[in-house]
């Protein structure tokens, strides 16, 4: 896996962001201090099962949505 630490540009929750190229979703969540069980991840419009967070990696131009439950009626 990539360790050089080169960064790539992605769209994270609608905003431009820089993340390590090839970083896994799990690593991303950890870096954001988000508990995997508390969020749902949509990568390029595909909803990810939690058990693939460790396998799926992030690359240039990816669109990532991290959602959760908030108060609503």
């Amino acid at each position, binding site marked *: 896996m990539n360790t050089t630490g080169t960064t790539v540009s992605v769209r*994270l*929750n*609608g*905003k431009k962001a820089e993340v390590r190229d090839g970083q896994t979703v799990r690593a991303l969540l950890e870096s*954001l201090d*988000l508990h995997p069980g*508390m*969020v*749902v991840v*949509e990568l390029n419009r595909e*909803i*990810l*099962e*939690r058990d693939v967070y460790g396998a799926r990696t992030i690359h240039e131009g990816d669109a990532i*949505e*991290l*959602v*959760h*439950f*908030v*108060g*609503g*009626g």
Partner: protein
Amino acid sequence: MAGGETLDTPFEVGGHTLRSRLIVGTGKYETNEVMVDAIRASGADMVTVAVRRVDLDRTKEEGVLHHLDPEEFFLLANTAGCYTAEDAVRYARLARAAGFNDFVKLEVIGDERTLLPDVHATLQAARTLAEEGFKVMAYTNDDLITALKLEDAGCVAVMPLASPIGSGLGVVNPYFIREIKRRLEVPVIVDAGVGTASDACVTMEQGVDGVLMNTALAAADDPVRMAHAMRHGIRAGRLAYLAGRMPSREIAVPSSPTRGMLD
């Protein structure tokens, strides 16, 4: 109330049994503490939540699960904020991926000012979601024909409005609500428009299976006390419906005997 419970019939939606006929939202409370206290006071066991992006700037902790225990409450995710069938389906799938249950409160809004549902897009989304195995509880207007089509589409509950979301106008058209209940087999849960306890009571007196509310609690001066009021109001309306009210008439009828008067 203990013994009282036995006075009512069971209430089941999509195979899930609910102890309370009152379903409450979790939005718009001033603090999370008040929200939790109000929900507990309401006696509700099913609560609605919305699907939103995580606030990465973390201005504050928005995640409702930090305040509500999924073991204590059944989480009903909604698709609030969606204006197309596609968006609603997307939000429903995200909600299900959270892993709690297959239920979704389907909401496809047609207009920002009134927040009235787009029944055309709602029907389309309901069909898609039902096919995907969702247990769809569909928010709709008070149109019987659409309600029947939603039932045909496989919704486990149909949820007509009493009046617009957040309006607090109560049941504006009891005839339509009553007729929808008469004609559907799936549970009918009135969603939106209830403003105070008597609105909840009147709604239940139409014979519907339950009521869903949010603003009436969150926007009351004292949400917790209002939650107690709503719990009683829902129960009062339900029992009155089952008890069968006296006929109303324009002419008076004495409640004390007319015979036995003195000379």
